[in-house]
């Protein structure tokens, strides 16, 4: 357990309102000046079924889920066995349950967690029109020491326009719940918040998907076409009303094939474009990504990964689209693959991807995942970045204009329709410099070289990876696995194990020299990822010189990578070193 953080889960069958209660709790925590993270766990049902709001709160920014829950409150036990594994309990955990819902199920009881029985249903009945989720909210807020004022302020925002009666009912529920706190004989309050010095940093509350949407806008995206697919849809739902405010627009396409091709059409017309999708949708878009490579048309695709293969587990996280993102395109098709490594980074990494795609006239794939995309966090205001869409255009093409001219850096000025004298045909067929289709070996070789060279010759700067710490031990990871790895490294340091972090953000093209520099002096490495087959590990082995000792730690979703299990791996490696 990270010092001074609190992990809790509100569980109930779909419709009991646990997500709503969790969301209010998170927002109230933000209101109180806390930091936090809320992950949603739910099944594939549209209504009903199991649901859990999993929160972690602290006075410092949160990187991911903890090893175990401190508090587990169940409104009912519907389908708990389906997802108990995602809600790890230990002996120090406290389980709050309503005796009216029957015995605590074995799957929970055998964890050895402490149990506290609170008659939630009965208490709820005591408030006219009351709701159990609001009673639970009052109870939890009281237990963790969340100021009532912050809770009421949040409720006011949420329920204010529904009238005074509704607010009063909610407040009565909170009060009735709070009164039950005495029955829970355990201390769950966070340590007192340190007195802030000077001006407090601005904090934001957002999901990774919203962050990606804002990153797209900041990068200069003004067109989007999309087909809904979980868990990526929130990005385009967020963009739909925002794009028109900046003079852009979003079109709902009939399928993913259409979505990516509409984006390509808009981009050909000079408008930076983005689409968002998840595994099966990405598979459908792959052919057109190859077209974007060959025709040198910039486009950004955010793939919010979920469990795969096939339809897999739509509502739960995994990092297993790595291989298709890196290798899915047919032919030799160099392209950009960028992975944000936190909710905040979804913003910067998407913005960077727009910038890179436009600068290099190529498709960029952003690999986010459900764990980041659909989790909502209270974070410090993200540092604004300057990355913009700056496409090299041919504004005054002469008689000798060649759209695919082989230039020193491989990037050729692009004539945007409307530009006098620049008419050319963009082509997915192999072509000569003018764009005319060609099957000649030298034309093919020349254009392949050009498209590779423009990506490998570009200076991506330090943002290619997050490299932190020192030591002969390194953890190499990517994406949302970075959060738990960072926390494991913090804990390891407290045990005297020093290790460095290499979180790779630019997955393609590979950066062998930068990686060699990052690995200088490293004798042992641990590779961490959320896949079944160790895709990231294999990718590293294929493209980089790794130290002699490499330990791979990976498991599939929907189980989150926990800091404790990474720490255990680090301990093993440190012991081997000592031996």
């Amino acid at each position, binding site marked *: 357990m990270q010092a001074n953080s609190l992990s809790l889960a509100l569980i109930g069958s*779909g*419709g009991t*309102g*646990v*997500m*709503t209660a969790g*969301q*209010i709790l998170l*927002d109230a925590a*933000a209101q109180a000046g806390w930091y936090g993270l809320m992950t949603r766990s739910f*099944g*594939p*049902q549209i209504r009903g*079924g199991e649901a859990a709001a999993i929160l972690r709160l602290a006075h410092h920014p949160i990187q991911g889920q903890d090893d175990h829950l401190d508090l587990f409150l169940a409104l009912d036990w519907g389908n708990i066995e389906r997802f108990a594994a995602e809600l790890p309990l230990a002996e120090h955990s406290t389980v709050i349950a309503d005796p009216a819902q029957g015995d605590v199920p074995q799957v929970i009881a055998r964890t050895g967690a402490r149990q506290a029985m609170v008659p939630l249903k009965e208490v709820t009945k005591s408030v006219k029109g009351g709701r159990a*989720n*609001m009673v639970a909210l009052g109870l939890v807020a009281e237990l963790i020491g969340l100021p009532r004022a912050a809770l009421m302020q949040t409720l006011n925002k949420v329920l204010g326009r529904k009238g005074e009666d*509704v607010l009063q009912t909610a407040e009565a*529920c909170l009060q009735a719940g709070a009164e039950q706190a005495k029955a829970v004989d355990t201390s769950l309050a966070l340590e007192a918040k340190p007195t802030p010095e000077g001006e407090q940093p*601005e904090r934001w*509350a*957002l999901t990774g998907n919203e962050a990606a949407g804002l990153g797209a*806008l900041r990068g200069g995206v003004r*067109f989007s*076409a999309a087909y809904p697919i*979980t868990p990526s849809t*929130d990005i385009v739902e967020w963009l*739909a009303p925002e794009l*028109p*405010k*900046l003079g*852009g*627009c*979003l*079109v709902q*396409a*009939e399928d993913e*094939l*259409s979505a990516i*091709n509409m*984006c*390509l*059409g*808009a981009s050909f*017309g000079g*408008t930076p474009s983005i689409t968002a999708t998840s595994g099966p949708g990405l598979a459908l878009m792959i*052919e057109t990504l190859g*077209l974007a490579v060959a*025709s040198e048309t910039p486009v950004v695709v955010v793939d919010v990964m979920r469990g795969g293969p096939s*339809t897999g587990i*739509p*509502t739960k996280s995994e990092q297993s689209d790595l291989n298709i993102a890196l290798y899915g395109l047919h032919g030799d098709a160099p392209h950009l693959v960028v992975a944000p490594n936190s909710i905040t980074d979804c913003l910067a990494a998407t913005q960077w991807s727009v910038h890179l795609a436009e600068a290099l006239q190529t498709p960029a794939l952003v690999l986010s995942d459900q764990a980041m995309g659909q989790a*909502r966090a209270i974070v410090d205001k993200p540092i604004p970045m300057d990355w913009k869409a700056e496409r090299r255009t041919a504004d005054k093409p002469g008689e000798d204009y060649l759209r695919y001219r082989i230039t020193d850096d491989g990037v050729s000025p692009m004539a945007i*329709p409307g530009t*006098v004298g*620049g*008419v050319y*045909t*963009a082509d997915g*067929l192999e072509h000569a410099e003018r764009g005319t*289709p060609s099957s000649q070996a030298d034309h093919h070789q020349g254009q392949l070289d050009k498209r590779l060279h423009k990506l490998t010759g570009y200076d991506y700067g330090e943002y290619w990876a997050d490299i932190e710490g020192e030591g002969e031990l390194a953890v190499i990871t990517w994406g949302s696995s970075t959060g738990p790895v960072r926390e494991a490294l913090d804990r390891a340091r407290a045990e005297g194990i020093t290790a460095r972090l290499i979180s790779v953000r630019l997955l393609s093209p590979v950066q062998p020299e930068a990686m060699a520099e990052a690995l200088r002096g490293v004798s042992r490495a641990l590779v961490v990822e959320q896949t079944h087959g160790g895709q990231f590990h294999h990718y590293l082995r294929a493209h980089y010189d790794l130290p002699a000792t490499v330990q791979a730690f990976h498991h599939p979703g929907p189980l989150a990578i926990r800091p404790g299990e990474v720490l255990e791996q680090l301990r093993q490696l440190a012991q081997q070193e000592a031996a």
Partner: protein
Amino acid sequence: MSTCADQIKTTELKAKDYKSDTKPVWCPGCGDFGVLNAITKALAALQLPREDVAFVSGIGCSSRIPAYSAVYGFHGVHGRALPVASGLAVSRPDLTVLAAGGDGDGFSIGGNHFMHACRRNVNLTYLVMDNAVYGMTKGQASPTTESDWAGSKLTPEGPGLAQFQPLEIALSAGAPYIARCFSGDPNGLAQRLTEALAFPGFAFIQVLSPCVTYRPEQKEYKKLVHPGFEPTADRREAFMQLMDDDGFTTGVLYKADIPAYQPDRAEPSDLDTIARQFRVGEHGPKPVTNPYYPCSEAGCAVDPPVPED
């Protein structure tokens, strides 16, 4: 350096000014030559600046056509000309967007896009050079091939399927401008195209364009085609005309005044204002309405539906 002759060219463009110097891959006698001629004539009739026209296609013999014209072009992947053209037209309403391709590209692999482009009614013109055969892959049946055509090794007994009916489907799906032309009559086609390019919405033209290599019997098209469609804005009348159609009737079948698709408009804003919604301020973060807060009932008991796919 602009010469006097250049200036005359830019002030008055001739059909040949819209032709590129790239030699078509088409076989001698291919109907698509007539289509190319008609397109360049129509562009000249409208005196459209070359740089303000974009020509999008998919894959196939006819889809090579953008490279043969001297306007902006996009030669994409199989079946996806319409989405590319739609994205371009929506984001660049100042351009004249023309999409073209064959019956396989448009009605088979691209069939879904065809229906939805008809529904979406973006301002663009879609021209399908229909020869009822896959020419580029050497003679297989296409969606518009007769069910008993046994000329393909892939379907030696004939495809045995009902023929795809482009005009009926376009009409059902909501296309506001529907016509059929014949490539052997480039002037007639140019006239229709001129009208279609100026039409404010999705205009669909099926062009009977013979493939003399794999369907030599299509040389007879010139004897079979006959004018007959009377333009109407009445869907019932249009369907009645199709009931009497032998597949070779030409003319404008349907022309309706349906507003073209326009993307949403919104109050202008700026990035900082948009980002402000995430700020945890004096009043806390803005409550999200999606996906967490439905609050449809007192006390917020109901969680929103959880999406699957």
